[in-house]
């Protein structure tokens, strides 16, 4: 894949300016319809989810007080994992998007909410709501694409280090919340030079993250294990497991949002003077949905409706499923591809892309059972040789 603008079969070539404008108008109207009908039932929904989540977390942690008994450990760990997933996805992510600000409840508001996560909500809101949702899938602008540590596009030059990208994608998945904290801090960029390291705003943000991590760790790895007395170690292990499960789950869901094969990326200069319609179109082409049951949608924080979420990030999450058929109909009418597949398929597709791009362009596609030795030899040469060798072999492969 490559950025949409460089593709020979540009998927939006058939759309006129007027088409794009009317897509924008239709979507604006769809949004307004939901905004105008927000009410009691929506408010009751989010309060119910919060209520269930808190009771589930309390219950699971209570069970874990006796976690040295294996059934209690299993039950408590499963419950806590689910509670942590609900807290991060359907509750935290969506409240921090301001989806529930209209209720004017200071307890459920994007400016007051704090979540069970290494990154303080204030920092995450900046990098996620402002940067990622504005510059969705624009190479060089949207750091969510590979989080600045991965090769996400054929146009990014391949270097041997990328061979390890499946490994660090997995490590990132296990400790995703810390990855996000580092990413929100723009750690790579900000640690690079002495001036940036000394920058007061970076230092303040760094301190805030460390404080948050300390509190989180104290809770999960000191206080609750201590409360468990003789079950100290099993509870610690349970909490660690629940955090890893939550991290793996949210990483998978988020990878499915923008990373499966066929999701488009965009050139930096393509968004200069972008109209409202064009912005919508970019969100439509740059996102992918996950199909599944109602429970699955809730567990993904309705990010399974990634397309709808990216079109309207501040609509209450419980309403995405209601507008999804209308959005899909719009895709169909304008001859656009609405990406939607089951969770295993989308996760598989995203991982396939991670693997493919960890290798030189075309390498995976050209490899057949018969030519494996030759391909491996070529890869070895490209890995051990200098840039010149790589360029030469790459050109040969392309020819």
């Amino acid at each position, binding site marked *: 894949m490559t950025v949409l603008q460089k593709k020979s079969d540009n998927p939006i070539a058939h759309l006129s300016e007027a088409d794009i404008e009317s897509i924008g108008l239709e979507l604006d109207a769809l949004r307004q319809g939901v905004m105008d009908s*927000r*009410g*009691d*039932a*929506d*408010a*009751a929904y989010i309060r119910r989810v919060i*209520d269930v989540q*808190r*009771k589930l977390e*309390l219950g699971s942690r209570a069970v874990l007080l006796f976690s040295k008994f294996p059934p209690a450990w299993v039950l408590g760990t499963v419950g806590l994992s689910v509670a942590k997933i609900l807290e991060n996805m359907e509750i935290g992510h969506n409240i921090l998007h*301001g989806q529930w*600000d*209209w*209720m*004017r*409840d*200071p*307890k459920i*508001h994007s*400016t*007051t909410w*704090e*979540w*069970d996560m290494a990154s303080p909500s204030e920092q995450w809101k900046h990098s996620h709501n402002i940067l990622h949702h504005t510059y969705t899938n624009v190479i060089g602008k949207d750091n969510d694409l590979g989080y600045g540590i991965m090769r996400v596009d054929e146009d990014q030059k391949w270097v041997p280090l990328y061979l390890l990208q499946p490994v660090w994608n997995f490590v990132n998945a296990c400790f995703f919340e810390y990855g996000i904290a580092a990413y929100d801090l723009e750690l790579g960029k900000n640690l690079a030079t002495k001036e940036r390291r000394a920058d007061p705003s970076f230092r303040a943000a760094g301190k805030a993250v460390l404080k*948050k991590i300390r*509190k*989180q760790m*104290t*809770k999960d790895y000191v*206080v*609750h294990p201590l*409360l468990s007395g003789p079950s100290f170690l099993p509870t610690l292990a349970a909490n660690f497991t629940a955090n890893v499960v939550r991290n793996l789950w949210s990483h998978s869901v988020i990878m499915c949002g923008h990373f499966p094969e066929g999701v488009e990326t965009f050139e930096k200069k393509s968004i200069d003077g972008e109209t409202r319609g064009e912005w919508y179109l970019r969100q439509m082409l740059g996102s992918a949905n996950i199909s599944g049951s109602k429970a699955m949608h809730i567990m993904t924080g309705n990010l399974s409706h990634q397309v709808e979420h990216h079109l309207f990030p501040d609509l209450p999450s419980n309403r995405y499923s209601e507008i999804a058929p209308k959005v899909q109909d719009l895709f169909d009418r304008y001859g656009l591809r609405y990406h939607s597949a089951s969770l295993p398929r989308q996760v598989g597709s995203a991982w396939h892309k991670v693997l493919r791009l960890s290798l030189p362009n075309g390498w995976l596609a050209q490899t057949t059972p018969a030519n494996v030795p030759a391909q491996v030899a070529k890869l070895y040469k490209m890995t051990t040789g200098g840039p010149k060798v790589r360029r030469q072999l790459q050109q040969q492969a392309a020819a």
Partner: protein
Amino acid sequence: MTATVPRPSSAWPVLGKLRDRVVKVAELVTTPLLPADYLDLVDPLRSGAALRGRIEEVRPETRDAATVVIRPGRDWLPHTPGQYVRIGIDVDGVRQWRAYSITSVLGRADGCFTITVKAIPGGKVSNHLVRRARPGTIVQLDQATGDFVLPAQRPEKCLFVTAGSGVTPVMGILRNHVADHDDVVVVHSAPTADDVIFGAELRELARTGQIRLVERHTQTAGLLDAAALAELVPDLTERSTWACGPVGLLEALEEHWAAAGIPDQLYTERFRPRVLVTGEGGTVNFARSSRSLEADGATPILDAAEEAGVLMPSGCRMGICYGCVLPLREGAVRDLRTGEVTTAAPGDGVLIQTCISAAAGACDIDH
């Protein structure tokens, strides 16, 4: 003091410190939430919680008014009759705050207090309370407040002038204090006899000689004005007067009392501010909330900001309590009651009351 008297003062700091420490540990357990977030699941009315109440009953009074019985949280302080309470209730999922006069007697056996609400046409909250609110609903509360109360030095002769739902604070006073006074006149104005809130109770007070009641039914007798009042109550200059009703009536009374040279014998209670002047609006920027919105010159900044989803501090909503004050870093606002324009240069941080200030140009508010 003798040695046998317990000295709680020395024991309290220790207990206080212990309590603080327990709270700190509990916070370590519940972070990033607070222990209160979990306790609220079980007992939202407990001591130490944000002040809330539970609607126990909604009792119709007239065709468009109802009395709402509210059980307040344990930190509720007794009110002074005549005061109002601010109530935050979710209507169509959106939290709305309004002030209502307390109408109940002090020290009810069940610990509840009541407000009496008249549904006004188009009124979001009043219609909800009168027609749709259900027992069991949790509402947010502030402590009772307001100056529309009897002075400690009780006047010999009182006059209460009320119109429509303006009778509610007066009923709060009468129910508690009517026995303290020998000479009480109540002049109440309502469209018809059936529209008189607490009609039966007022008539009973009159029948037993506790008050002199003058009912003015405006559908047949026309609106009550100061001249008509002077005819109905010839000795009104000798009385201390409490008046509550529409802005027009109150203004007429204030003028009349001022002309008579006795403005300090009149106490008035308004339910909403008087808007005098409006003008051009502007863009209002809330830097710390990362929100920016277009506000017209007639809408209080508080209302415009809430409409846009900004969490705003608020209080009486009529320019009295200063609960809504925020610093204006730069820009201009107009006081809707007087038309006075307040400007702030960068860095000034002029404190403005957002509930009665509308944008008069671009504004940058530190919030």
